[in-house]
């Protein structure tokens, strides 16, 4: 497993043209370990590659679309829960990127919903079922 290989493929997608089957396997292992295989699928989209590699990347892309849909749904539910509290919904990290349509969100793996709320409203907002996971004060 090689981080260098992954970085190379992300920075210079055409470089995958020279990969042997074993190097493809290494690339996918590194991309999965770094949770970047959805991003890799986006970067390599349309390039010539072995059929099996294309299938693996198509699966990864479909997974990323599922995570994107899930993240936006969670953001939608959080917005509904915050309505009337006076707190705006401030999304952070992955969900923010996909909600804003930023390129950093393309193919990104999104594990959970991170939001920012005013400290003095935290108790009130938690009472509405938001932030049932980990809350952290900055």
């Amino acid at each position, binding site marked *: *497993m090689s981080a260098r290989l992954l970085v190379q493929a992300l920075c210079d997608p055409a470089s995958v043209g020279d990969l042997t*089957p074993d190097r*493809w396997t290494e690339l*996918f*292992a590194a991309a999965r370990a770094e949770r970047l295989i959805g991003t890799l699928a986006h970067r390599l989209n349309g390039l010539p590659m072995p059929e099996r*590699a294309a299938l693996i990347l198509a*699966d990864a892309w479909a997974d990323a679309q599922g995570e994107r849909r899930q993240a936006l749904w969670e953001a939608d539910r959080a917005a509904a829960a915050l309505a009337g509290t006076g707190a705006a919904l401030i999304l952070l990290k992955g969900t923010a990127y996909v909600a804003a349509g930023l390129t950093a969100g393309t193919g990104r793996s999104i594990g959970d919903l991170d939001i920012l709320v005013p400290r003095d409203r935290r108790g009130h907002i938690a009472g509405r079922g938001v932030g049932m996971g980990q809350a952290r004060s900055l």
Partner: protein
Amino acid sequence: MPADFTVRLLPVRPWRQWIRPSIFISGDHWLADAAPMALAHGLLAAEMGMNLQMALGWRRHLLLHASTVEKDGRALLMSGESGSGKSTLAALLGERGWRLMGDEFALIDLVDGSVVAFPRLVSLKNAAIDAVRAVAGEDRLGPLMAATPKGNIRHFIPRADAVAAMDQAATPALLLFPRFGAEGAARPMDGAETFIRLTHASTNYVALGEAGFRALTGLVSAVPAVALDYATGEEGIDMVEQLWSALP
């Protein structure tokens, strides 16, 4: 061809290569709380590692924890927990005129609902080892791994013709939920119960979203399901053959 997945079997700590050698199952997908295994059970660890990649990572089919055998292009799926006898029944049927399509996962095509073969080594446990050896002989059995977390285990090689035919899919015709060790009984199951049991038997139903729902409801509405209790392997085989011959 690139591999679909990578499995890594690594020592729990570097020195555990030599002192009480033990391994942790890892790879593209892994479970942080999985218990380490003795190196002597490494073959089982490799099998579990491969199963784990499929269970957690495969998206191209709906995966059901089930064994599958085929006859005349039609498939019999047997789903159940470890110890239900699904692997043993499939291995025995595979020696009696059926094609063994798989003993661990049934792969259901998301578009046409067919079941795709995934024939690999069959993991035989405890009394199942002797039951299969009695009909298939010693040559196709691997080494004995004694007292593993799953009991005594030997792996069994499917027939060569079953492996050669692995590219031939089949149409599901009957779903069985076997339970070994109970008095013989066959109870037809309705669609709701079958659906719920299969959602529990699937490792990727939730991840597949709507495609998984369509594949599973399609399967349940097209195929009759029976809960099958049996006391001995012979009784189980007889009951399976009877149910099969009664299909329209």
